[in-house]
Structure formats: structure tokens, C-alpha cells
């Protein structure tokens, strides 16, 4: 159904024809979750994901399946888009208790009290993640929001899988410590 277009002046991708529409659909939720981990507002996440897939569509002829998985290629675009977003904003926002983003993932809780407790827990957790360094935040986001394996995270961040595992282990331990400090 989909024909891979070639940009003039560039060599055609050697990969077989791919159904980019299905690929985009299959990764939409994961990329959106990853972006939502990294930004504070829902609007920003929706704006960013639109930019991410537009870039992916425009440069889809540059994707070579022989060089890596589609997930790593797409998350690399998302990561670069996020970096540009941070550069334009020059700041990192923190999660707030009244953030509308948190209303979505606590709405599934049946009890209102449970919703409030869970919302507070998640906000603390995400704020703790925000206090980590950039690399730790990136690895945690790619791991738990993007649901990428260590190999895939390594390809996105130009690291080895073992190194990703160690960095992730350290990041979680630092997060645990950070949450304990915030609680005390």
C-alpha cells in the first residue's frame, strides 16, 4: 500500500517497503507517553508528538531497517525534538498537584480517596524523576514510558546495553533516595 518515496539527491533506502502508517500508529502511545514523562503539560506533549511524527514522515526515506529498529529511529527523533523543545523553553517545569496530566492516569481509580492518594504518589514520583540528571531522566523515560529494551535505549542514546543497565540501576537507586529525602 505504501510506497517509499525518495528525496531527490538522496539514495533510496535499501529497506523493503514498510507500512509507515501502521508503524506510526503502533508507536503513537509509547512516544506520547515518553514525551509526557518529560514535559509538564498535556498541550506540550501533544504539540511535540505532532512534530515528531511529521519529522518521521518527512524523513522516512532515511530509515534503514538494516541499521536499526524502527523504534530506535523514531525515539531518536523524539529525543531530538524534545531537546529542541528544552532549548527553546530554557527551563524545565516541574509537576504540580493540579496538573491536568495527572488527572488522566488517576481517573481509572474507583475511589476518590484512592485517586487522590495515587495522584499524590505519582506526582512525587515524577517530581523525583525531574530532580535526577538529564541522562537518568532520559533512561527512565525511555524504559518505563517508551517501553524500550536496554539494547534499544543504547541505540537511542549511543550507549551499550550493559551500560544502560548499570545507568538505569543507579538512576533507580538515586530516585529511591531522592524520594526518601523528599518524604522526610
Amino acid at each position, binding site marked *: *500500500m*505504501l510506497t517509499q518515496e525518495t528525496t531527490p539527491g538522496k539514495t533510496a533506502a535499501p529497506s523493503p517497503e514498510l507500512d*509507515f*502508517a*501502521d508503524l*506510526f*500508529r*503502533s508507536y*503513537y*502511545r509509547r512516544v*506520547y*507517553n515518553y514525551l*509526557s*514523562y518529560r514535559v509538564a503539560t*498535556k498541550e506540550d*506533549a*501533544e504539540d511535540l*508528538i*505532532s512534530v515528531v*511524527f*511529521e519529522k518521521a*514522515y518527512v524523513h522516512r526515506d532515511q530509515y534503514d531497517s538494516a541499521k536499526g529498529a524502527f523504534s530506535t529511529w523514531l525515539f531518536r527523533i523524539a529525543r531530538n525534538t524534545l531537546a529542541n523543545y528544552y532549548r527553546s523553553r530554557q527551563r524545565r517545569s516541574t509537576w504540580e498537584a493540579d496538573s491536568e*496530566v495527572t488527572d*488522566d*492516569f488517576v481517573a481509572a481509580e474507583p475511589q476518590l480517596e484512592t485517586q487522590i492518594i495515587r495522584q499524590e*504518589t*505519582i506526582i512525587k*514520583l*515524577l517530581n523525583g*524523576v525531574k530532580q535526577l540528571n538529564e541522562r537518568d531522566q532520559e533512561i*527512565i523515560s525511555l*524504559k*518505563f*514510558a517508551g*517501553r524500550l*529494551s*536496554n539494547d534499544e535505549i543504547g541505540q537511542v542514546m549511543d550507549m551499550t546495553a*550493559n551500560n*544502560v*543497565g*548499570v545507568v*538505569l*540501576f*543507579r538512576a*533507580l*537507586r538515586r*530516585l*529511591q533516595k531522592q*524520594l526518601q529525602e523528599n518524604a522526610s
Partner: protein
Amino acid sequence: MNEQEWAQLLSEQLDEMLEGEAVDFSTVVDELQGPLQLSQQLATVDFPPSPAAEAAFESQLANWFGPSVGPAFPTTGLTKTGFVNYAIIGLIGVGLGGLLLLGSLLWSGSGEEVTPAATLLPTKQETMSESPTLGRPINDNTATVTPMASPTTAETVAAPQATTSLGDTIQLEPTSTVSDTLPTATLTPPADPLAPATSGSDEQTGDETNADQDVSSGDETGDSSETDSGPTGDHDRGHGNDADGIDDDNPGNSTGLPDNGGGNPSPGDFSQGNGGGSSGNGGQSGGSGGQSNDTGNGKSDNNGNGKGNGKSKGKGK
């Protein structure tokens, strides 16, 4: 175990957890209890995109790749709302289209009523209803008028039939301009074989045009135009329009005053109050006060008769 081994073990358990397998914390070493619990909390955090964002993404994909087989995510209530909206818009569109169609039909129907053809038919019916009472005299009068349309046959046709009681019929029935024509077509054959062909065609047009304005005006001025005298300046001048001032046909109605045939001579009007059936175009006479609005027509077909009758003056009794 060194840190790298702990990290490797944690990564394996995280992969199992993210794949949906339950984590048995009882078997997890104490070193990994804290990171695994945090990982479990982080894995539950899910940010669902809004339906609007999903719809925008789907539309974007449709623009890029064409119509899709189906969305990756289940349809939400937004599509139902959109469907309802589309249905409402469609119904409104159909309703508006029906109204426009109905309006156009009504408008076109009213236009047909205004057309001259529609008015001619009832006029002829009136003529038919009137013709039984006035049929004979009017026919005779028409026979005299017919030669005016074709002067070559006027003398032959008019002379024999002008002797009949022409003036009575015209004076008594002012609106006989229409009725004159139809009987003329039917009755001219007995008068003369040559006259019917010419008079019938000329008067046919004159009647139709007269019929329009007689219906609208309905006054006697139309009759004054019919006070056509024959080529000889006959007795009948309509309402006392005889040149000699004596209306033989209708002496009681002659006022003794100069009468322009009941029609006011309109400036610039070639047929002064004279658009009668003889001219064939008298139908365009204004219908008010006998003013004939017909400038070119009254003159074209029937010059001599039109002027002669309009300016005739009579003394009357």
C-alpha cells in the same frame, strides 16, 4: 555480586515486568527490592492522549498515506459525535435543498401565471361567453374592420357589411375588443373568400394584444378605439364620434361635444386613442382614459384608420 551483575539482574526482572509478568518480590534480593518497587510504580504511569489528539493524528495519517484500514486505537465517543454531527448537517442540507427546490417551483409557477399566454386563455373564454349575446353584430363590425388591415380588400368587404347595425353592438359592449376578434375569424368566410384570410390573421394578433389591456382597463376607452369607421367615414364612431356629429347608431349617447373617441390624444402618440382592433395593436393602449401608449404599432398596421377615428369630432344631440 558487583554493581554490573545487580544491574543485569534488575534489567531481566524489569523486562519481565514490562512484558506483563507479575513480579514475585519474595524471591527478589533485598538489593533490588527498592528499585523494583519504584519501577513498578513508574510502569503504571500512563498518559493517555486526548481523543482530539488521536483524531488529529489519524487525520494527519490519512493526509499522508491516504485512507486507513482502521485506527490503531479503539474508536471513542468523538467519532460517534462526529457521525451525529454529520448526520445533522446532512439532514439540514437536504431540508435546505428541498426548500430551495420548492421555492424555485413556486417561483416558476407564479411566473407562468404572469405570462401572457396564461392571461390570453381566460380572455378568450370571456369572449366566448359574451359572444352568444353580441355575436352577430360584432361579427359584422369585424367584417368591416378587417379590410383596414388589408386595404386592398377593404372596400369589397366593408361595403356590404357596414350596413348592418354595427354601432349598437360596439356602444353597448365596451370591452368587445377581444370579442371582436374571435368571431371575426369564424364569421369572415361567409362575407368574402378573400377577406377572411387577411382579416383573420391581422385581427388575431390585434385581439390578443387588445385582450390583455381590455382585461386590465375594462373601460370604454377601449371601445372608442373600436369606433372604427369604414373607409368611408361611416356612421359609427363609437360614442358619438361621428364626424357629422350625428351618431346614427347611438344617438342617445352622443354628447354633442367634440369627442376624441373617448380616448385622450396622447402627445407623441401616433394612434390617438385609437389602438383598436382595427389597428391590430390597440392592445397596447394604456387602458386609462383611452390613452393609447402604443406609439409605433398603431401606426404601422393601420395608419389611416387609427388617426381618422381618434380625432373625429361629433356634435351629438
